[in-house]
């Protein structure tokens, strides 16, 4: 019989020694403490935002009125103007970033997989995903306003956000397409289905929930970006639907416009209300993403 790791052939089944029990409890304390430390700031942010902003968002005027003509000293008004801006800017951004990102990922995974070009592009996209939003904003400013001579506009903001959203969409779509087993592609080819149809009818439907989750999460991320809004469009308190106008409100800039008010002012309160609304929107988008993922999972059963 060969020697066991304890050096004898005898099997010991007693509880571990005292030193090991202490190490084990120490480790348990450390990991618990780290978790608590990570949660504390998050919980405190949520607490202050909800406690200071919740009473505002329960009124219908908050959702249906703008801040037009309302001074920081006055109560009332709402964030409809900022909501319009945020949704419009996000939709324009998505309309540009989603097709480019998804089609780009399809090219990289389905057509250029393993090739040098694909690896170079993936690497470049990884770098791009790390650029600060202010750099994206200044790049668009330099290109649109300095070089082309356009004015500031919500569209310019959307374009800056595209630079931030594109890498997220592209990378997440790439990962989801990679997860589709090659056996499914082969099964489709073996039925005499051409490659483009295989991608369209087999690969994308299989990866659909993952791709759309990536898109929604990417959208949630860029909705809170502030730097492009500050640089590329002016904040206005009125309602504006035109994305080409140089004045358009959005939630981050609404928060920014009220942040230097004195603490007791209603205008200061509205900052918290807007912050809470933004968090709610991001939360809803995350729930939608989870919903999409779950819906397609249920279908499998």
């Amino acid at each position: 019989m060969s020697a066991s790791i304890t050096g004898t052939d005898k099997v010991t089944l007693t509880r571990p020694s005292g030193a090991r029990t202490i190490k084990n409890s120490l480790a348990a304390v450390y990991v618990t403490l780290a978790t608590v430390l990570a949660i504390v700031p998050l919980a405190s942010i949520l607490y202050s935002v909800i406690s200071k902003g919740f009473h505002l968002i329960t009124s219908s005027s908050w959702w249906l009125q703008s801040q037009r003509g309302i001074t920081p000293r006055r109560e009332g008004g709402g964030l409809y103007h900022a909501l319009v801006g945020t949704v419009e800017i996000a939709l324009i951004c998505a309309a540009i970033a989603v097709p480019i990102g998804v089609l780009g990922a399809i090219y990289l995974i389905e057509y250029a997989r393993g090739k040098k070009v694909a690896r170079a592009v993936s690497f470049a996209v990884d770098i791009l995903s790390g650029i600060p939003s202010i750099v994206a904003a200044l790049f668009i400013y330099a290109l649109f306003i300095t070089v082309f001579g356009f004015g500031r506009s919500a569209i310019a903001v959307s374009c800056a956000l595209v630079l931030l959203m594109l890498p997220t969409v592209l990378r997440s779509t790439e990962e989801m397409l990679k997860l589709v087993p090659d056996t499914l592609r082969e099964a489709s080819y073996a039925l005499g289905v051409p490659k483009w149809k295989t991608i369209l009818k087999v690969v994308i439907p299989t990866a659909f929930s993952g791709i759309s989750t990536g898109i929604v999460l990417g959208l949630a991320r860029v909705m809170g970006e502030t730097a492009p809004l500050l640089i590329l469009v002016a904040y206005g308190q009125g309602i504006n639907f035109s994305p080409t106008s140089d004045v358009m409100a959005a939630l981050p800039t609404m928060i920014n416009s009220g942040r230097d008010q004195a603490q007791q002012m209603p205008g200061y309160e509205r900052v918290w209300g807007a912050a809470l609304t933004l968090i709610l929107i991001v939360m809803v988008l995350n729930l939608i993403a989870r919903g999409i993922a779950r819906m397609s999972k249920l279908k499998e059963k």
Partner: protein
Amino acid sequence: MAKRIDVTDVDIFYGAFHAVADVSMTVEPRTVTAFIGPSGCGKSTLLRTLNRMHEVIPGAHVQGSVELDGTNLYAPGVDPVAVRRVVGMVFQRPNPFPSMSIFDNVASGLRLNGVKNKKVLSEAVERSLVAANLWNEVKDRLGKAGIGLSGGQQQRLCIARAIAVEPQVLLMDEPCSALDPISTLAIEDLIGELKEKYTVVIVTHNMQQAARVSDQTAFFNLAAQGKPGKLIEIGSTEKIFSNPDQKATEDYITGRFG
């Protein structure tokens, strides 16, 4: 409906690697031919060249000719997509499309090739599921997801999907290796029935299976790791399993090798 396959002097390469050397054989219509041999000897690779599926792997190429009733599959101008419509394939692991229902899985080959008529589709689905011995088990839940079935049912679903497009030849790459004995038996019975309409070529690691289902058996071997796989012997299954010409064949079948 079924077609004859003539493989002549075929060499298969993956890039610079010579995977299969100098194979010639004939597969008669409405017969089952089994490919046996150790792993890495090129059985699956050769099978895949019969419908140009090896081309999915970058760098794979073929020399020699594979003729389907006299038409060379590797002649210039031949569309691999068209070849695969005529020569269907069932894979080692059941691979139903996870985004589709049972019905849609079976109908996928026709639908993706442009058939839209609902009546034609539902008739083809029923016919194929009946032929795959799966109809009675799934007829009440055609709208349910294909991957909700058991492994053996999934594999029969994949066979139904492959025969729904009415190919001339059906290639099977170890179709039972992921299945339990009962499901295996169901598939083997099915192969016996499919033979009446299709030319079937099956790769298997299971000697008894080859003996049970096939009319003709081809034994492949390779001299050493890294050397190309070769066709050692091909003949009627009865002869290969009782009185093979080559000693290597006998050794492999009886379990004396290495």
